[in-house]
């Protein structure tokens, strides 16, 4: 065996194989799950937490119930039969008579979960709903691919803290045409959740659109809920993650992301650290590791051109320094350059367009 591992080729094969076996990927399933939203309200709701075995091994699952402020309200451990499932009433495991919160589950084996919310009043059957659990540890960026702001429709973007770190959220709301309609900042309580009303964020304007959520200080999971009391329907679905990734950088020569800086400064805002960490991870991926990258800074057209070029140079350099010192990218692989207001992505005709033009691009150079 020792001889086997002394041979670097076989050692590489062993590592690769181990990686293959341990990283088989699952959709909607994992060893740690989060139910973004559950309700205990015995007079109104019949709730079911359904947790199912995925691998045919069964085993123990530890379950924690938190209120939306992140206070632990109850816990239990259950055994899932091999090939079977458990169907729990959350109300039995919490001390409070009424509660809205999140549920976290850990298991040694891969599991999948759902929350079913049935309404006891038969005339409210149209609100019955089932939502799959999100897979921890969540994401640093989420896309709510559709939202409605309309006084006749209740809509909520529900975001849960996935790592117990109380992250700050930056949410940007765009119209279907891609125009910025609102920006908001929120803080999620540790282990808690937030329900964001898109209508409030866009100033009550009647519209449909897309919301992009970015975090600072931790990962999140999310859902979108839409209820129309007039039309009598309720739907909900999971939000998807969208961080920059190695695969994209391997396939494309240009990665364009929004890095946020303090006003008129080259200081990177903490909210962009997660994106830069993902960019560094992608750059250090084996598929990209032989490439060098140009970090290009751009500004909008407000102010003197010469000043903007210097500002964009300082910002690009600031990003480069961060990737080297905080994220472990080799300095010899990076160059920084500032283009100021040149090559705008869109005409600088509105604040939304100017925001889009203030950007940093990562261009893959030759090996």
């Amino acid at each position: 065996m020792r001889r086997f591992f002394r041979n670097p080729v076989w050692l590489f094969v062993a590592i690769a194989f181990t990686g293959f076996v341990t990283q088989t990927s699952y959709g909607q399933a994992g060893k740690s799950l989060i139910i973004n939203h559950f309700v205990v309200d015995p007079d109104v709701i019949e709730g079911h937490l359904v947790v199912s075995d995925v691998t045919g091994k069964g085993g123990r699952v530890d379950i924690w119930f938190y209120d939306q402020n992140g206070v632990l309200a109850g816990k239990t451990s259950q055994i899932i039969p091999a090939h079977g499932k458990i169907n729990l009433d959350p109300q039995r495991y919490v001390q409070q008579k009424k509660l809205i919160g999140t549920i976290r589950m850990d298991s040694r084996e891969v599991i999948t979960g759902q929350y079913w919310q049935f309404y006891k009043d038969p005339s409210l059957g149209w609100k019955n709903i089932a939502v799959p659990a999100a897979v921890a540890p969540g994401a640093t960026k989420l896309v709510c691919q559709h939202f409605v702001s309309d006084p006749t429709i209740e809509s909520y973007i529900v975001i849960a803290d996935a790592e117990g770190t109380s992250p700050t959220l930056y949410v940007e709301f765009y119209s279907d045409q891609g125009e910025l309609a609102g920006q908001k900042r929120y803080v999620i309580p540790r282990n808690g959740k937030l329900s964001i009303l898109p209508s409030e964020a866009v100033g009550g304007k009647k519209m449909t659109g897309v919301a992009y959520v970015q975090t600072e200080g931790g990962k999140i999971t999310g859902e979108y809920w839409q209820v129309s009391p007039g039309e009598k329907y309720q739907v909900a679905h999971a939000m998807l993650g969208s961080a920059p990734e190695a695969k994209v950088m391997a396939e494309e020569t240009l990665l364009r992301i929004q890095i946020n800086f303090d006003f008129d400064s080259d200081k990177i805002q903490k909210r962009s650290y997660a994106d830069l960490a993902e960019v560094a991870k992608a750059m250090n991926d084996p598929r990209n590791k032989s490439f060098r990258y140009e970090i290009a800074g751009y500004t909008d057209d407000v102010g003197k051109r010469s000043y903007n070029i210097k500002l964009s140079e300082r910002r690009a350099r600031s990003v480069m320094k961060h990737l080297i010192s905080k994220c472990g990218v080799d300095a010899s692989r990076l160059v920084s350059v500032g283009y100021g207001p040149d090559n705008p992505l869109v005409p600088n005709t509105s604040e939304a367009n100017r925001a889009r033009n203030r950007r940093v691009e990562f261009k893959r150079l030759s090996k």
Partner: protein
Amino acid sequence: MNRTRMTYLLSVFLVLPVLVNAQGSREFVVNHFVSDPNVIESHLVITDVEGKGPIVTMKFYDNDGNLVGEGKELLQPFGKLNLDPGEYVKHAVVNGTVHISADRGNIVAEYWQFYKDPEESWKNTTAIAVSAPGFSKLVAPHFVSDQDVEAYLVLASTDGKDAVVTIRFYDDTGRNLGKARELVKANGKRILKPWEYVKHKTTGVAFIESDGGRVAGEYWQAQESKRYQVVYPMGGIK
């Protein structure tokens, strides 16, 4: 090719599948869509994730995998498209799947199914699209076998190949209730009723394995007496 080089190539082959996969993607499959202008108002919602404003190509297939319509649309950066699938299949009555691809940048997609009769609005529902190329194994974490409950396992081909699927049904305690083998035609889909295989009233978990091609799945459950319909995606193993 010498043994060392072959071993090296093998190791590279083994490394590739472990690399990052994300939820935003270039290609998606909507497991189920309906075009039925008198009954259903359906929406195919496709959203830009990265601000790249791609051109998206959509191919609409019926349940047997026949191409029944296609289209291309420009997606605005940071915007979304809200399309009527009926417009791409000449407003024919079709039940099938949609395959969506973007020429650049990641997208996400979802399908909304609204019922035109206000009395049936309790059936209105939405389902998120699944990132291609789909899965070789699926788990339906919950199913009902009950003649009074409409329950369906919806299995769609995601990689353009015929897939022979084996479905094993277990009750909640993990007791084996039987199995079925069905063909999901390339680009098509199969809709299975657990009752027809289990033949008694129970709830449980269904494990699905595909051979030949990859699949994605959804579970639909509706009960007219309680006036609800729910849909969710099955968990999958790549």
